[in-house]
């Protein structure tokens, strides 16, 4: 009987991408992939450690798997496996702790385990790009990993310590991966990495790579996922109207206060960020811009927070991924004296959330009367849900449309609520 394996992914897109490709490998290798809530022979937890909350969630998830089947193999990987390796190795509930850069060996590790071999994950090869293309992953769009690691060492961030130094995937490999994804039938390629704007492979920079991906034949679109502002070079502006490039950019601002940005050791000012947004909008006025904001960074005053609100309003971010600052051992900000009380962080986070919702509704409403080309993600009798090229959700009521199909719609309305989908009619 096929062995059962269950996966749980916490944290970022990169983790999701890596789990997706692992799922593919295990399916090909004869495993039955089951839901994490079900009984399995192996549980794989792809952890995150960016905040205290994510550490906590990762621990709970490990316990959850062990409660369902105490004698199952528990394999823990992801950023917590790097950041808290000793702690995890000492935890008797865990069978294997696998570093981030050995993640692509997980299939071999589990396979060796069931063949009765003695397994030491630390002896496996390091290879952060050793993931096969997923034919049967969970999503209709696929992530395309171009880079890993980061050297920026922003003062609040644990990622450079757990993901390691920046490394770029060879151009030819990225292009081959992209071609394969297009061949399989993916309609949207989401460019992914830890700090994608720092892509530099033998002098080919991020924007050069995007240009080459866009030039590939096929009916697909490319979405640049989350990026840091310093990755935004001149050439990128000229590509913003490319028909294959989705007009959605998630560029991380983190704070609107110049003083806080300096303390965060970010490499731009709020002023220069704002100028960049103006330049983007002058080329592409309908660009959907989203961002990350940290509230309650050590020393953040009411004025600093107000500056963040002001910048979010001014730049019209249609979604703000708001993080309450969370102390991470080993980072510079964790050693700073003036930590902000939790209550203040929560209040600021709520205020930012409300502003973000307001911006989102205003932006999405602007599509009423216009057209969107959707990729259908969810197909149902009551409605089908697709994502438009601007990364806006659109519902087509009363129509069961084939998943992963293109559909051209006219936007006729918008739902109520805090994450309102647009209502579209087929053209």
């Amino acid at each position, binding site marked *: 009987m096929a062995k059962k394996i269950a996966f749980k992914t916490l944290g970022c897109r990169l983790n999701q991408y890596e789990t997706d490709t692992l799922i593919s490998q295990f399916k090909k290798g004869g495993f039955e992939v089951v839901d994490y809530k079900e009984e399995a022979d192996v549980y794989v937890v792809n952890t995150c450690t960016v905040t205290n909350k994510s550490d906590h969630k990762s621990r709970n998830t490990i316990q959850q798997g062990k409660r369902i089947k105490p004698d199952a193999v528990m394999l823990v990987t992801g950023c917590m496996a790097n950041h808290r390796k000793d702690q995890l190795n000492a935890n008797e509930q865990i069978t294997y702790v696998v570093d981030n850069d050995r993640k692509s060996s997980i299939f071999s590790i589990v396979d060796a385990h069931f063949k009765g071999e003695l397994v030491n994950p630390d002896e496996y090869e390091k290879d*952060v790009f050793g993931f096969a293309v997923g034919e049967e992953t969970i999503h209709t769009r696929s992530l395309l990993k171009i880079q890993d690691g980061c050297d920026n060492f922003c003062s609040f961030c644990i990622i450079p310590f757990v993901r390691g130094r920046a490394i770029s995937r060879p151009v030819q490999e990225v292009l081959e991966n992209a071609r394969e994804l297009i061949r399989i039938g993916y309609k949207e390629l989401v460019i992914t990495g830890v700090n994608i704007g720092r892509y530099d492979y033998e002098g080919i920079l991020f924007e050069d790579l995007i240009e080459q991906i866009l030039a590939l034949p096929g009916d697909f679109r490319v979405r640049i996922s989350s990026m840091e502002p310093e990755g935004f070079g001149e050439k990128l502006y000229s590509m913003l109207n490319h028909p294959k490039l989705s007009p959605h950019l998630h560029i991380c601002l983190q704070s609107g206060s110049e003083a806080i940005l300096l303390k965060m050791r970010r490499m731009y000012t709020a002023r220069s960020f704002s100028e960049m947004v103006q330049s983007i909008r002058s080329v592409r006025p309908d660009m959907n811009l989203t961002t990350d904001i940290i509230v309650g960074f050590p020393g953040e005053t009411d004025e600093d927070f107000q500056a963040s609100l002001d910048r979010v309003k001014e730049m019209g971010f249609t979604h703000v991924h708001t993080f309450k600052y969370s102390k991470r051992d080993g980072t510079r900000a964790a050693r700073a004296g003036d930590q902000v009380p939790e209550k203040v962080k929560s209040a600021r986070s709520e205020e930012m959330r409300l502003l973000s919702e307001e911006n989102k509704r205003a932006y999405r409403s602007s599509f009423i009367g216009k057209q969107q080309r959707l990729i259908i993600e969810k197909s149902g009798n009551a409605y089908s849900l697709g994502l438009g090229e601007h990364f806006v959700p659109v519902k087509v009521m009363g129509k069961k449309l084939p998943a992963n199909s293109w559909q051209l719609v006219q936007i006729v309305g918008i739902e109520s609520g805090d994450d309102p989908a647009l209502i579209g009619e087929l053209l």
Partner: protein
Amino acid sequence: MEKASTKRGNSLSEVRVHEVIEVRHLTDTAYVLRMTKGSMDFIPGQYISIGKVASIDKRDYSIYSSPNDEYLEVLIKEVADGMVSKSLRNMKPGEPIEVEGPFGFFQLKPDTLNERKHLFIASGTGISPFHSMVTSFPELNYHLIHGVRYGADAYEKSMYQSNRITVCSSRDGKGDYYGRVTDWLKENPIDQSTYCYLCGNSDMINDAFDILEAQGVPSEHIHAEVYF
């Protein structure tokens, strides 16, 4: 910018063990720690993370020496209640020290090195990366403004050509200028084509940034390295 890498695993940065050569005391609280260089290759302006062997407490220090030197140096100022800045002062020649790096993007633009005017603004030990730059590129056209509390904190001032350095001391009149670097900047407007590099504490950098932008220096010509 970080060079492209062809390796497949981006392991966490490598920790290397170097050896202390000497501790050179500059003032009661500031010193230069000289270590063996090993195979360390860096660009002037970059920093390393150092700490005692097997200690989890590592701190970042800009590299004070030049890549052309046969040793590696950092300039450290003891911080009141600080853990690492105090403990490193007591290191003895021959003692091992853990070094990670180099890191950082606080670097001069190679294409404009010898053409442009450079303004370096430092507070306290923020002078360290500029020392590395100036000793690495002897042809550099620069002016260094060093903000200190007391004139005696003008670390190794004689290393710089006297017409290229202005020490601004805010608490005594023993520098070249009595006042803060920001006061000096306001009184001495900067040519807009100057490439400006700021290093040290973030309050000084924030104020200096505003003054430079108000004087018309484009933000893409202003680079900052924040220590705290």
